[in-house]
């Protein structure tokens, strides 16, 4: 999956299996990623677990879990709020589009989480205060949102060079031109959301990834605090990107 970290690093990672995105004193988020096509190390998210930890007079510990084709509008215990404490409604699960889009508002930690299912895979976006993001101890482990993926998990992909008439990957139904045209319909700016979209279409041939990139950018627009930094043009650890022309 493509990862945009707290520091606006943009990476594409293999991270097959279960990986923690966030692990702090208030919140734990873990994703499970599975291979999308045989013969490629590219993976996408099929499961997401969020744990809101017990917090003072506000909320009991609550677990939210989503899987492909199961995007519930409730925590695993069936409730939609933070339990029985006075401030329980400072944690709410909201269904935006049944089975496709939920939001979790954790007002007591100033946090908003957006989970979507697009095609067979899930997307995740979060907005939280820096103070909350940085509230972890040394013994709390890896957090992809904080420092990105380990170096050996990063995919330093480059878009394939145009090959007239042929598709770019064995599993792709798209030529590069067709993928570019498809992604441009939704993502007019040649930033890394656009390029990720093209990469995903060429890798999988699954047009749902166009929507994943589109909504990921919509979520950034809604959640990111700096409107001047919405677009990203250069990947982190981007040593040899094949298409190094300026973004715009």
């Amino acid at each position: 999956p493509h990862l945009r970290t707290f520091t606006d690093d943009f990476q594409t990672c293999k991270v097959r299996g279960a990986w923690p995105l966030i692990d702090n004193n208030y919140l734990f988020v873990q994703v499970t990623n599975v291979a999308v096509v045989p013969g490629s190390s590219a993976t996408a998210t099929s499961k997401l677990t969020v744990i809101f930890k017990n917090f003072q007079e506000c909320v009991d510990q609550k677990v939210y879990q989503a899987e492909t084709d199961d995007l519930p509008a409730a925590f695993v215990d069936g409730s939609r709020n933070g339990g029985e404490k006075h401030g329980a409604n400072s944690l709410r699960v909201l269904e935006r589009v049944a089975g496709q889009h939920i939001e979790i508002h954790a007002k007591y930690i100033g946090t908003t989480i957006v989970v979507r299912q697009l095609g067979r895979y899930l997307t995740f976006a979060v907005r939280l205060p820096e103070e909350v993001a940085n509230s972890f101890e040394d013994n709390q482990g890896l957090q992809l949102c904080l420092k990105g993926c380990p170096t050996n998990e990063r995919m330093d992909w480059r878009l394939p060079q145009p090959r007239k008439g042929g598709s770019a990957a064995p599993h792709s139904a798209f030529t590069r031109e067709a993928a570019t045209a498809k992604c441009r319909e939704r993502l007019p700016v040649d930033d890394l959301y656009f390029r990720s979209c093209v990469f995903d279409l060429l890798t999988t041939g699954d047009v749902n990834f166009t929507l994943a990139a589109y909504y990921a950018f919509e979520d950034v627009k809604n959640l990111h605090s700096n409107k001047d930094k919405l677009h990203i043009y250069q990947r982190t650890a981007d040593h040899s990107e094949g298409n190094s022309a300026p973004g715009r």
Partner: protein
Amino acid sequence: CRILKCNSEYLSATSGLHVGTEESAEFCIALRAYSQCTRKTARACRGDLAYHSAVHGIEDLMNQHNCSKVGPTQTPARAQPTSLDCMVHSDAPELCNYEKSLQRHAPHPNYTHCGLFGD
């Protein structure tokens, strides 16, 4: 554990009342509110002596005044929330609203974002 808050609310509600049949209805209203208050705080107060004393005391007093467990309470009805911002109970602690709880110290907290999508 907010049992002291429940205690003081009950005491304040019953401070002008005199034990007698004519004022039992008012006692019952106050006791039901008291009971409701203790239920809300039950989880946090588990094992707290003051809490368990209050729960037993309420039962005794309800029997004494022949109060039914169902009926009006003194707690004013809460207005239905009209938007997300209003969904925290009016008596929820201020610390359950991150921005409000910070206002005194840092009026404008910095926010950050993380996202994961695609393949």
